[in-house]
């Protein structure tokens, strides 16, 4: 069973150590040159930028997703499921469609510019599409439900009497948040951050459609190496770099998410 999935990944590793043929395909001659090429400053810059964009995406999702999850967890129990359903419906909607929706909003003749011009806030249309900001908006939009889901899973089970006890002991709202709610929500925060960071890091559609040629991320770079330049070994080496980062994230999850299993997260979405 596990072999079924391990085999293709091992193949990626093998190809990353083989020699490139000009029009795709490989010769099975061992070399480490692909990993040296993958560490080229140009590629490293794209990698760093991907990590940065994914990191900022995660931070924004946490900051805007936390109040939403907390608010839903405080609603009457009978209505919580409906609110969570409302959060999950966009997640069930085609990712390509959702990304296109932002192209429609952000392009120069798009809705946002039309409205801002109409309201007289700006005098020239802003260049919004094909920027890093557009990629950021697309990523936050795409993966916000992944943050809200595990946060809600922990916040819904939060014992309210602990908060009351903290208040009785004269903790202000800030102290309650910092010293009671956040520590108890930690497994959900870790899970949410990993669930947002990992797909953001490897995103392809968002940087491809909203970022254009100037905002390459590691996902678009890998696609470019495989399908445009046809340098498979280099593409495979870059894929392995991405894989390594993902493994690091998953390790962090296993260490710090405590007993918050995937099953319990999925449960919250039902």
């Amino acid at each position, binding site marked *: 069973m*596990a072999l079924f999935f391990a085999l293709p*990944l091992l*193949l990626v590793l093998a190809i990353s150590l083989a020699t490139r043929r000009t029009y795709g395909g490989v010769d099975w001659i061992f070399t480490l040159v692909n990993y040296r090429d993958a560490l080229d400053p140009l590629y490293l810059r794209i990698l760093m930028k991907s990590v940065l964009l994914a990191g900022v995406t995660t931070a924004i999702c946490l900051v805007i997703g936390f109040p939403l999850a*907390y608010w839903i967890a405080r609603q009457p129990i009978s209505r919580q499921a409906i609110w969570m359903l409302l959060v999950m419906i966009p997640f069930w*909607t085609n990712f390509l469609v959702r990304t296109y*929706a932002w192209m429609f909003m952000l392009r120069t003749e798009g809705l946002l510019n039309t409205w801002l011009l109409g309201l007289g806030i700006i005098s020239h249309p802003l260049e919004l599409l094909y920027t890093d900001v557009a990629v950021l908006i697309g990523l936050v939009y795409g993966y916000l439900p992944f943050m*809200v889901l595990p946060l809600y899973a922990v916040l819904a089970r939060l014992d309210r009497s602990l908060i009351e006890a903290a208040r009785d002991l004269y903790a202000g709202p800030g102290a309650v948040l910092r010293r009671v709610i956040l520590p108890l929500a930690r497994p959900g925060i870790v899970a949410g951050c990993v669930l947002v960071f990992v797909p953001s890091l490897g995103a392809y559609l968002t940087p491809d459609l909203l970022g254009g040629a100037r905002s390459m991320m590691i996902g678009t770079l890998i696609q470019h190496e495989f399908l445009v330049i046809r340098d498979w070994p280099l593409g495979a080496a870059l894929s392995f770099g991405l894989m390594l980062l993902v493994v690091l994230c998953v390790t962090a999850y296993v260490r710090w998410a405590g007993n918050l299993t995937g099953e319990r997260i999925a449960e919250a979405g039902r």
Partner: protein
Amino acid sequence: MKARAGWLTAAAALNLLFLYGPILVLIVFSFNASRYSASWHGFTWQWYRTLLDDRTLLESVWNSVIVAVSSTAIAVLLGVPAAIGLERLAPARQRLAEAGLVLPLVIPEIMLGVSLMLLFVTMHWPLSLLTVTVGHAAFNLPVVILIVRARLRRLDPRLVEAARDLGATAAQAFRRITLPLLLPAIAGGALMAFTISLDDFLVTFFTGGPGSTTLPLKVYSMVKAGVSPAINAISTIIVLISMACVAAALWLQRGRDK
């Protein structure tokens, strides 16, 4: 205290506006009479009519249905026995298998696409609808196994024991007790797999070849050619299909809880 609750509600409302605003705008403008403008020029169905004239689009819908149905069928036929088989493994091996199952769901999808493409090319399988279907089965299989397994674990083992005590053979007990109890989970898992397959872009992008353009790939090439109300129209239809799938999944779940 009151002020803070108000602040929270406002934050939640803004979040939901952020999640739904762009989709609603997209739908509204699929009925806009003007081709280029982002302001309202009157209601029209014309963009939906142009979709019906697009032969390649209709072909891509057909391809999507073929891939989604067959990859879901493969996932169910392999996944249900696998879920039941997993239950009989030693706990340590179960945990290992579970890690292997979650792997394709947590790695970035592009990794899955790349590795499957390399696998097919190495095996000299020409990239076609067949490789796309196998690729989709690869991510649908763990979905089905995980959902069926979750249900299997909640089954009361005494039910099967009672059936055996009353003289049922193992096969009879499976067919008349276990399988009917698993059915909602199997249907739910199949529906989820079907939806994911229908929506998939990246794995199809890497594992497809000439003649295997699915709907998302077709929409992608339309989007690459530039914003047009026809894309809004096809997007609206896709959104409605997703909603129908969610509604069906909920309905199935309701059956399960009774």
